[in-house]
Structure formats: C-alpha cells, structure tokens
C-alpha cells in the first residue's frame, strides 16, 4: 500500500498531493467506512445463507418434480416417527400411507418381512414410496401388522404435512388489507394532492398520517382487538386482522400515492381543465391513470410490509392449528368471519410453542424459507416496477 502511494508521488507530478498524515488518515477512514458498509451486507448475507442452506432442502428435492409438492400443498399435521429396522427411521403420514397401500396392496407389510427381532425391513423403493408424504397413520398400520413391533416411536406436532394453510391465510389477510388500504389511501391522497390547499385541517391530517406511521405494530394489534374484534363484534377473524393491517399500512399507501400524484406535471391537469373537463373527469382521466404505476408499486410495498407482520394479527386473526382451508368448511359464520392460520404466526408457533425435535427442524426452516422467498419476490417485484416504470417515457 505505501509503495503504491510513493510511486504515484514522483516529483514529476506537481499537482499530486504530497504524502502526509492527512492522506493516510483519509485512506484509513475510507477503509473503515467501507468495512462498516460491507459488514452489514455480510451479516445480511449470512442470515440469508443460513436460512437458504437449511430451508432449501426442505422445499426442493433432487428427484423430479424437484419441488417438495406435499410441503406446499398440505396442511400442517402431526408427524409420526418410528424405527422399522435397526438404525433406520421412517417419517410417515396417513394420506401418504393410503396412497402407498392402494398402489402396493399389502406387499410391504406382510409378516414375512418381520424378522426374528420383530423388526420390519423395507426395500429402498418401499421406503421411498413411504416417505413421499411425511406422516403416517400408525395405528392402522399396526393393526394390520400384528407381528410388527415398532421401536422407539415418537411424534412431533405440526411437523408433518405442509404449510398450505398458513400460506393461504397470509395471502387472504394481505389481500384484504391491501384492498382496503388502497381504496382509502388513494382517495385520501387524491384529496390531499388535488383538492386541498393547506390550512389547519390539512395540516392536522398530515400530522396524523405522520404519527400513524410511527405507532408500534403491537399497539395496532391492541387497537384492532378493541375496535374490530370487540366493539364491532367481528371476533377473531380474517376481517378483523385484515382491517387492522390496513390501518397499519395506510400511512405508507397515502404518502406513496401522494408522491406519485405529485409527480404528474401540472400541465396535464391544466390541459384537461382547459378542454372543459370537470375536476373529477380530470382526476379520473388525466391524473389517476398516470399515477397508477406509482400507486401499484406502493401497494406491492404495502403487501411486503403487511405479510411480515405478526404482532397485529396475533389477537385479531391468527390461530395455531386449523385442519381445513378457509373455503372448505364455511360453517355458519361466513367466509370472512373465520380465523386463519398465517405464515408468520405459524413460524412463531413452530419455533417457540411446540416440542422441538430434530424432526421439527425441516418444518421450521422450510416455513421460514418459503416465507423469505415470498417476501423477496414481492420486494423484487417492487424494485422491478420502480425501475421499469421509471425507465419508460418521461414528460
């Protein structure tokens, strides 16, 4: 390093700075700043790497179809683990067992397969077939195989099956939240940008929006519980959760929409008005369509925010276990008035509330991985939208 500096500072070049403590201090400071920046990035990459390395094997597999379909299409279930032979472990599931048995009519479990120790040995194919699903209706198996003595069996709650329920719940909650928030938010932004022109009332609104943005998410949870669940009597439901989340992202959507309305040149409005359009016609035809990309980007951003929140839905919408998808069993309450599973709450449940074994790990990391991928896709989408629309025509 010092060599380089000295070489550059040949007396020939009079405009070059002379070597001084100042310049080396500058170098040092620069290096420190560089380190700080990249340290943060390294930490982020470290976290991603950990999640991806441990989570990806759950979701992807080496054989076609390369994706662990049951994990994404089944509901969480209890996983039963037992050892059919020395040093071998099976993780089985009732549905998978039914599928397997219908294909292999009783072959696998006849008593010839049971050896002197009462252990069953399976062939590779059989084992593979069994492991397609992850849990197994043990009692039925035992009943049809009296000679079979399972060894050190155990079970792990919520660790079998997949995470379809939580995914669906998250999607529904965010959809409600974003639809509601977009509707109110865009209208509010139109008012603030197109109709209002200052004054104490507008100042109060802006102040309120600003303050709303800083309120902790758990306080929104309390608010949602008080207003939607109790006062309005919606109970612990999708609707309560969705509205709570909507209020939470309202400031984001309002301000983002307003920014994109502001970016529309005044000329558009003036031209429209000059042609005799009314104010509303102007807004509808000459302003909103052009602000749409910005507003949509804002809504994607809102989705990213909302999908990741746990605290506001803990008391308003989420439930730990539910063995039906929302539309499968409507009951008397109606679609929106049922509680749902949600991915962040599911992660909370499997990481802190249930017995942990090594068999719970795949469920934990798998859920986190899927969740991260969802969030990353949304973030990526909003980046793409930003650059895409920004790159297009300028006025």
């Amino acid at each position: 390093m010092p060599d380089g500096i000295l070489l550059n500072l040949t007396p020939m070049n009079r405009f070059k700075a002379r070597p001084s403590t100042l310049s080396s201090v500058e170098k040092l400071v620069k290096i420190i700043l560089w380190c700080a920046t990249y340290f943060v990035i390294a930490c982020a990459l470290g976290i991603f790497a950990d999640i991806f390395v441990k989570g990806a094997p759950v979701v992807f597999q080496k054989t076609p179809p390369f994706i662990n379909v049951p994990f994404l299409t089944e509901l969480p279930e209890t996983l039963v683990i037992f050892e059919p032979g020395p040093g071998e472990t099976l993780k089985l599931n009732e549905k998978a067992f039914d599928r397997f048995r219908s294909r292999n009519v009783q072959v696998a479990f006849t008593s010839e397969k049971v050896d002197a120790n009462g252990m069953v040995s399976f062939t590779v194919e059989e084992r593979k077939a069994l492991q397609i699903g992850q849990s197994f209706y043990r009692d039925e198996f035992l009943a049809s195989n009296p000679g079979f003595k399972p060894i050190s069996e155990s079970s792990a709650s919520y660790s079998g099956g997949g995470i379809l329920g939580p995914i669906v719940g998250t999607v529904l909650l965010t959809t409600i939240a974003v639809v509601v928030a977009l509707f109110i938010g865009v209208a509010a932004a139109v008012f603030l940008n197109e109709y209002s022109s200052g004054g104490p009332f507008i100042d109060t609104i802006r102040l309120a929006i600003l303050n709303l943005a800083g309120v902790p998410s758990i306080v929104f949870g309390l608010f949602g519980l008080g207003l939607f669940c109790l006062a309005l009597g919606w109970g612990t439901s999708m609707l309560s959760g969705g509205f709570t989340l909507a209020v939470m992202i309202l400031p984001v959507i309002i301000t983002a929409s307003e920014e994109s309305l502001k970016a529309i040149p005044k000329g558009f409005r003036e031209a429209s008005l000059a042609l005799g359009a009314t104010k509303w016609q102007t807004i509808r035809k000459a302003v909103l369509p052009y602000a749409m990309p910005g507003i949509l980007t804002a809504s994607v951003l809102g989705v990213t925010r909302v999908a990741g929140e746990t605290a506001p839905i803990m008391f308003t919408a989420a439930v730990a276990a539910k063995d039906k998808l929302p539309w499968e069993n409507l009951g008397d309450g109606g679609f929106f008035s049922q509680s749902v599973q949600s991915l962040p709450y599911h992660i909370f449940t499997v990481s802190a509330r249930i017995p942990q074994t090594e068999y719970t790990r795949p469920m934990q990391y798998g859920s986190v991985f899927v969740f991260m991928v969802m969030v990353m896709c949304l973030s990526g989408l909003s980046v793409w939208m930003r650059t895409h629309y920004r790159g297009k025509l300028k006025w």
Partner: protein
Amino acid sequence: MLRRELIRSTKWFPYPNTTTIPKTIHRMKKTAILAAFAAFAVAAVAEDKIVIKGSDTLGAKLVPQLAEAYKGAGNSVSFEIAAEGSSTAFTALLEGAGDIGMSSRGIKQKEIDALAAKGMKQVEWLAGFDMIGVIVNEKNPVKNLTKEQIKSIFVGEVTDWSEVGGPAGPISIYTRNTSSGTFKAFQEMAMDEKDYSKDAQMMAGNEQIAQEVGKNANGIGYVGLAFATGEGIKAISVEGVELKAENAKQYPIARSLYYYTVEGKLSPAAEKFVKWATTSDEALAIVKKVHFIPAK
C-alpha cells in the same frame, strides 16, 4: 420534508417519471377481483367445526393427535386448536369463542363467577393426569432433588448448583408465563405457594423451557411429562421418585388435566368428541402415547 423522508424509508417507491398505465391493468384488476369473489362464493359443504382453546400442555401434543385420530376414525368434523395457556380456555368459553376449553388446572372461583355472571355453568371433563417433571441439562450430574431443594431453587434461595450437589455454577431458572396452568400448579405443589424468584425467566411454552434448559448446562425448569424427553435435557427424580408414568401415584408433583365445556351450549359434534376423547380406548391409548396418564 420529514414526511418525504419517512416515506422514502419505506423504500422502493418509484418517483415516477412514469408513463401511462395500460388499460389492461385496469381490466385485469377487475377480473381478478371478480374471480376472487367468485371463489369466495363457492361454499363447500359445511362440516361441523369444533373450536378448542386453552392449555399449552394439552394443546401442543395431545389434542392435535386426538383430533387427527378422531377424524381418522371416520368422523367428519374439522378442528381449530389454539393453545395459549389455561386461562384462555375460560375466556374463550365466556365469549363463546370456543366449544371446548383445555385446562391444566382446575377452574378458579373467579372464573366460575365470571361464567355465572353470564348465566353459564361449566362442565368438567377429566382428560387425564400429568406429572410435572423438573428438568435439568443432560450434562448436569444432579440426579435427584428433594422437594425442599426444588422449592429453594425456584424461590431463589439456592442459587448455585454446588449447594445441591452439582458442579459449581449459577442456577438459571426457567418458568412458564403467569397465565399458564403449569406455572400455577407448580407453585402450589412444589413451592408452597411462594412466589417465584425474580431471576426466573418466563417462557412462552413448555417447549421453550425444554429448549433453553437443553442449551444451558446450568439451567433448571419444569415441564409437563410429555415434554420431558427433549434434546439435551433429562428429568430428575423428585424425592427419589423417577419421572415415569408408572410412578404417577408416588410422584409428588402431579396434577389433573381437564376439558371444560359450557352446560347446554355444547354442540352435538363437540360433545361427541369430548366424550370420545375422555372415554374411548382409542383415545386413552393416545393419551398414554403422548406421556400423560389416562383418567381410567
């Protein structure tokens, strides 16, 4: 200006020098919304739904497995299970938010009063018995503690393992959070109702205790029998009685587990389930399997 900063902080917002939005997006949006509503409208045949709320001790393992077995036995019902602590069982019953409440302690007078104030009366179903295991890290050589020692550890009088025959090291106490039935039951049975040491850490569930004790060589905690076999932990004998289902009679820290329902408000499906869960052989086998002691 601050407002703008705030919003920028929310990131990736395009300050669009943007062009027109294609009409198709509008149309697509509309269709999407319509499709969504159409999907919502498709109501499947409604099965009976049973909502079960309450104790984490029961809800983390036993009840989900009972539910699965119950459905496996050909009953077409669906379940919703939330396990946040025994106190939630009674709030749920009170508000009609649940059909069945799971509790790892008997109902309190206060809760009976609250139910009575709404004109309701509880029905108690004995779900089984549970032993509360005192667990330590598997690396801890301590194998047995007396009740007196356990009490002095949890109230904070004994703070070092060497005082109870272990290697030198400060004791880390892990307890449940205050609404838990286990928290209360342990206090009554093992600590003469004394308050917990203020150094005790409150964990959200049995499992978190097991997890922390499994990773802290100086940890001690208590969990339901079903949780006492986790990674890195071992249950110690209390007064020389080993933590085993066979020893339920002699083991000093054992308690009953209950389901609670409201008289006259129980749906037939839920009643059938709770009867099945408390009396059928199949259910009792599952109770045994998850390391509780069946009521019969």
